[in-house]
């Protein structure tokens, strides 16, 4: 009897655990060094180390905050907007006296992961989201101001949005038909709306992009903007960074399946193809509009495709992913040209043009290509039976609306929190370095070292 009872309690599968450990490391790689190099190559050599440092230290700080309280705010039951402090300081995750690890659900009934592993995997998401913002105000913000802003924005924007989009009681809570509605009501607000966001189009990309754009406005333009050349100092490093991002993104997207199974494979292949399609689209767009396809364009196209396929990767079909990639490549090319001029902000490394535009394109098209009529996998009608919405009942219009509502809420929430956070930092620490320091370069002015010695 005891043996049977033990067998009935779900145990993590070793394959799933191994897969998710690898995915967690892959997403670490996306921030450091991939994003750091991608961004670093795009700034002038006098600011190289400042970008690397802002990414490296933001990453480390957010990981600590995530373990201390961020995970709990995002992924425990609370209200529709934010979780509780039940897991603050990692309480209840691991009992050394009995050697037991708490488990958490995945997307399949009876399949669980050690909750510590899920926490670690999600830590890398929180960290890279904050690191993404760095690109918007690169080359002019005080180091202390960057970190202070990150603490505020992470706490009041990232954790709540992650909760709203991703928190739900898990499939094993749906043990009867009567429990479907009560369980749904325990989930985050955007999850309740039925929005599909497989790996973080809203939580990560739109969220970060809006915070970045607000920052570009509030920190102000770089000295010499529009008059002096701000040429990227090493597109070689930018290419290395973009390629490593692509590699790491397999962990980000396919890992978001939380299991080593079919869903992960679908997300993996879609991440592969959409990104390649976006590279081609950006290069074709450049060749047609400007006469030459550029390395920076190809690298930017890859990131645009990766961003756009993020919410879609496990939620759309194979051809849908290619379409999303192509559309994202062209859309983000517009994002860093036409849209950038319209917005008039000095978003140094085009965080909004790529992550904002790509994120919105991906979020909306997820609602289109999720439809089984267009080759998509559909989504569960209810989590008691796990039956999928049938093609005849699937409404693309209402799904796109559910996606659009999530985009709008994320834009407003992130924007308001970011504006308040920048303002608070401005009146306390001050956002910008002095003009003299900016001219000299942040490497020496903020960190007392130089990236390159001739």
């Amino acid at each position, binding site marked *: 009897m005891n043996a049977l009872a033990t067998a009935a309690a779900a145990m993590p599968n070793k394959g799933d655990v191994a897969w998710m450990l690898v995915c967690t490391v892959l997403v670490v790689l996306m921030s450091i060094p991939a994003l750091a190099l991608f961004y670093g190559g795009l700034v002038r050599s006098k600011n190289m180390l400042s970008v690397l440092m802002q990414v490296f230290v933001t990453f480390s700080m957010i990981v600590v905050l995530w373990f201390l309280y961020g995970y709990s705010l995002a992924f425990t039951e609370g209200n529709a907007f934010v979780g509780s402090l039940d897991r603050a300081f990692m309480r209840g995750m691991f009992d050394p006296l009995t050697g037991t690890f708490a488990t958490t659900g995945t997307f399949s009934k009876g399949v669980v992961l050690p909750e510590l592993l899920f926490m670690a995997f999600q830590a890398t998401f929180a960290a890279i989201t904050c690191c993404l913002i760095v690109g918007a105000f690169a080359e002019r913000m005080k180091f202390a101001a960057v970190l202070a802003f990150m603490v505020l924005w992470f706490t009041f924007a990232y954790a709540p949005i992650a909760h709203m989009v991703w928190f739900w009681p898990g499939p094993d809570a749906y043990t009867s038909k009567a429990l479907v509605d009560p369980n749904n009501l325990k989930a985050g607000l955007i999850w309740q709306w039925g929005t599909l966001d497989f790996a973080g189009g809203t939580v990560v990309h739109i969220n970060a992009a809006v915070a970045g754009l607000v920052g570009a406005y509030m920190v102000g333009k770089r000295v010499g903007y529009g008059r002096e*050349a*701000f*040429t*990227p100092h090493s597109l070689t490093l930018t290419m290395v960074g973009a390629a490593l991002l692509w590699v790491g993104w397999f962990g980000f997207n396919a890992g978001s399946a939380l299991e080593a199974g079919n869903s992960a494979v679908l997300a993996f292949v879609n991440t592969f193809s959409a990104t390649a399609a976006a590279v081609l689209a950006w290069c074709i767009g450049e060749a047609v509009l*400007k006469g*030459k396809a*550029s390395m*920076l*364009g190809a690298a*930017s196209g890859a990131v645009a495709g990766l961003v756009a396929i993020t919410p879609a990767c496990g939620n759309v079909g194979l051809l849908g992913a290619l379409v999303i990639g192509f559309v994202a490549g062209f859309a983000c090319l517009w994002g*860093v*040209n036409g849209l*950038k*001029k319209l917005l008039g902000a000095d978003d140094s490394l*085009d965080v909004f*043009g790529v992550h904002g535009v790509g994120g919105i394109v991906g979020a909306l098209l997820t609602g289109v290509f999720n439809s089984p009529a267009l080759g998509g996998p559909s989504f569960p009608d209810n989590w008691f039976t796990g039956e999928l919405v049938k093609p005849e009942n699937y409404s693309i219009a209402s799904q796109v609306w559910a996606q659009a509502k999530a985009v709008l809420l994320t834009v407003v929430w992130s924007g308001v929190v970011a504006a308040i956070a920048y303002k608070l930092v401005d009146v306390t620490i001050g956002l910008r370095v002095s003009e003299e320091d900016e001219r000299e370069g942040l490497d020496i002015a903020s960190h007392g070292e130089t990236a390159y010695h001739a």
Partner: protein
Amino acid sequence: MKMVTAIVKPFKLDEVREALGAIGVQGVTVTEVKGFGRQKGHTELYRGAEYVVDFLPKVKLEAAVDDALVERVIEAIEGAARTGKIGDGKVFVSTLEQVVRIRTGETGKEAL
């Protein structure tokens, strides 16, 4: 004595050096420089931002030579550095008042 200063395209440096060696020039100083002439610059495009690059990279050679050798030096540089396209560079010749070999203290022609 004359100081011959030539501005040439960087990829022509080796040919110029060989041509000068062949006619007996004993030493040349080479500097990587930037500048503009009739070739003008070019534009570079980074995403939405377009920058005009006014100064193009060139190589500057300086050779101190005896008066008797000046014409052949000019011919050698011209022959080796010419591509026929705009931006091939220029040769400047000026009078050199004094030369000192630091090791021996020799001056004038002896020091060339």
